[in-house]
């Protein structure tokens, strides 16, 4: 499953600069809003679902080389967060859906923990 398919199927808004998302296949999925847990538990090159939109999500995503961060509940990041994500080449995706719904849809698409 490519990131482009995930973006299309879940109708996600791409907040950061476009990349060739058809070339990215996330390694797994992790969901948490505690960044300390994410740093310990998320998969390298995986997807991360969270409603945190603080600038530290960019640092965590860069640290783990995540495929993308899916920000839920329409929790729109500040412009400086998006700028930093672009500098770090981190992809931020936004949805009005809650974390549970996003996780459920990804599971239905066949993505498992990793």
């Amino acid at each position, binding site marked *: 499953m490519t990131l482009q398919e995930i973006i299309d199927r879940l109708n996600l808004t791409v907040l950061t600069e476009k990349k060739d998302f058809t070339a990215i296949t996330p390694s797994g999925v992790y969901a948490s*809003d*505690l*960044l*300390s847990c*994410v*740093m310990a538990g998320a998969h390298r090159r995986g997807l991360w679902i969270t409603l*945190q939109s*603080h*600038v*530290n999500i960019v*640092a*965590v995503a860069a640290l783990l080389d995540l495929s993308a961060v899916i920000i839920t509940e329409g929790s729109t990041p*500040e412009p400086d967060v998006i700028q930093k994500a672009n500098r770090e080449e981190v992809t931020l995706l936004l949805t009005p859906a809650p974390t549970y719904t996003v996780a459920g849809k990804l599971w239905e698409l066949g993505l498992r923990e990793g």
Partner: protein
Amino acid sequence: MKTYTAELHVHTVVSPCAAVEMIPPLIVDEALSRGINLIAITDHNTTANVAAVQEAARETGLAVLPGMELQTKEEIHLLCLFDTLEQAEAWQAHVDIHLPDLPNNIDYFGEQFVVDATGDFIRREPRLLITSANLSLENAVAGVHRLGGLAIPAHVNRKAFSLFANLGFLPPDVPVDGLEISRHITPDEARRQFPQLQHYPLIQSGDVHFLHEFLGANRFTIARPTIAELKLALQGQAGRRLEIRPAEKTT
């Protein structure tokens, strides 16, 4: 220069999680009985009982700084400390705009009593105080500083409502005045466990929800109990300093 034994994180009965004994005269008596002569009143998202505690402490030798324990939108607890009631009330007005208008559920969260200096009931605070204001950590720190206050993330070593748990680390460009550790850890242990602490001044607090939780672990050497003096002590400047050690119980 004078030594102040300080407890900078004290709740009153307006915090739904605080014990009913946390009324102004008992707070003042308990602090003084432990040799504590400087406290800050820091209820969740409110300054409603600050003036009552200040009045109860008048001419007792206990200095009472107005404050608040703000919950940011990242669910981080931030101590906001001020010199004057006017500054604290200006901060309250700003926080009020960003607090959701949810009613308190007394059965789940507890009573939120606003009281007078003797501890007598004035009113119930109807809004739920144990919730996040829609203010980011960065915005909150900047807002407190604009009003001349101190901003100190609370109990950073804990698992809940903590800077390190929720955000992983403190972004280096957020100018907090210090970091607070809880009673559950020593400063040395905390610095080992969280290497980032080495770059910031530390205070230790009892996060006092019950009278027996006063620690008085902070010994400030300062000229007077003001925000400017505390700031100098946190930075170890101009002969001001802060030492953390447990208070001796005098009763």
